């Protein structure tokens, strides 16, 4: 059995009409994309809809696909745009003040308990809550990095922000997560 075909190669094959290439590509990317979307919108039904819409857009524009970046970057770019639109329609952006309030509430009961003392379940629950409470830009940058595996430059290009801005967003996101688990 030969080496696995790269995502970009599979996408080009699909653009030429190879449905099997798409299946392979989809199998590779479906989990990452779904989690990125789900953790961005934090709503299963909305995530399902956005997930399907993302693939739909990709399929529709398959003939225009050019290998200019990683395939996952293109895929996440489509999803990112849809998420931004969805969040704009769904609710206003959480203000910094609201975020701080959520953080305080999160911190209040177990702020003095060390991270290692928390059960794994509790750690996951807290991380999930922190992610949900992060401002959208910070959460976006965090998820693109940790779920999508994108670097600073790619995140910057995808979100349309400068690299330093992205780095700053990531720094703030990490700080808030650390706060939540800090000693």
């Amino acid at each position, binding site marked *: 059995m030969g080496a696995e075909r790269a995502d970009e190669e599979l996408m080009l094959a699909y653009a030429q009409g190879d449905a099997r290439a798409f299946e392979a590509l989809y199998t590779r990317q479906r989990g990452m994309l*779904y989690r990125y979307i789900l953790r961005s919108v934090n709503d299963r039904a909305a995530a399902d809809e956005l997930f399907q819409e993302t*693939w739909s857009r990709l*399929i529709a524009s398959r*003939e225009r696909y050019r290998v200019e970046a990683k395939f996952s970057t293109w895929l996440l770019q489509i999803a990112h745009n849809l998420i931004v639109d969805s969040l704009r329609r769904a609710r206003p952006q959480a203000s910094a003040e609201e975020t701080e309030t959520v953080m305080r509430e999160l911190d209040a009961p177990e702020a003095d308990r060390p991270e290692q003392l928390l059960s794994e379940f509790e750690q*996951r629950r807290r991380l999930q809550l922190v992610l949900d409470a992060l401002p959208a830009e910070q959460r976006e940058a965090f998820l693109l990095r940790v779920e999508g595996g994108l670097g600073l430059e790619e995140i910057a290009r995808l979100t349309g922000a400068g690299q330093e801005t992205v780095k700053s967003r*990531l*720094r703030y996101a990490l700080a808030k*997560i650390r706060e939540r688990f800090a000693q």
Partner: protein
Amino acid sequence: MSGNEKLERELESFLREDGSRTAALYRKLPRPEPDASLDAAVLAMARRAVASAPPASPARRAHLRWIPVLSAAAVVALAVGISYRLGPQMWAGRKVLPAAPPAASSADEAARQGQAVAAEESPARRADMPAAASAPAPAPPAGTMAPKPAAPSIAREQAPAKVSHLQSAPPVDKKSETAIAQDAKAFPSQAAPGAAVNLNAEVAQPVRAEPAAEVAQEADLAKQAPATAPPAPPARSAGAPASAAAAATSSPAPQAFGGVTAPAGQRDAIGPKQKRAPDSSANLYPEHWLQDIHQMLREGHRDAALESLAEFRKRYPDYRLPDDLRDLK
């Protein structure tokens, strides 16, 4: 180590994904995946997309570029083919037919009957028939465009060997053209509006009832015309009384057309099919046939002309031949 330094180190390791505690913690989160139904929906969508509209490969795109060119060529070929097949009939539809059926002789009567049969036939059947068989195309009045002779097109289709003869627009026999003019004079009352079917003349001069005197004058002019002059204009009159001058000359009407007044839409009244013969000249209508014989004589093919004339006599025993041919032995 300060908090800031720890944060920077964490950020660095997070970006490198190398020992980041936050990343490790994130990995412990549940890893939700799309439902099977969602997977099926997406995969079906992808399959449908490539099945319904397979994207064009470069080679296929190159082929696609030729499709408009090939389509245009096919359309042109089709148009040429249709016009080649139908053209003679369509053009012949513009030919001038005399307006009045002659009644002075039994031949004229027969011609009228034949025309009546032709007029009663369905347009579809008429379309199958040879082109209008007017004799030398009557010329429009001065100042109007000369009608395009139908003979060349007929000759092209039926007797290729004669094309050059017929296309050269041979001089018209004076007698036959005077006969046409006289026929028009003799039976103006039977001519309906629109029976004069020279379309060019119609365009220049709308169909109208003309006084008999005017018709007679036109016929007289036609009689006085030199042999090489274009034939006289057709009668366009309707309902006008016949003039005495018209009755004096009874000349045989060409059998291929009579004075039956075909409606404007049927003015391409065409001679009956049964007149066609295997012989190339015999395929022609009498007037054209006689022109052919004249042409043969002019070119020195006397034997052939005599043979053709004999055949003509057999086929049209009642046809009144021009003097020069009548005495030809």
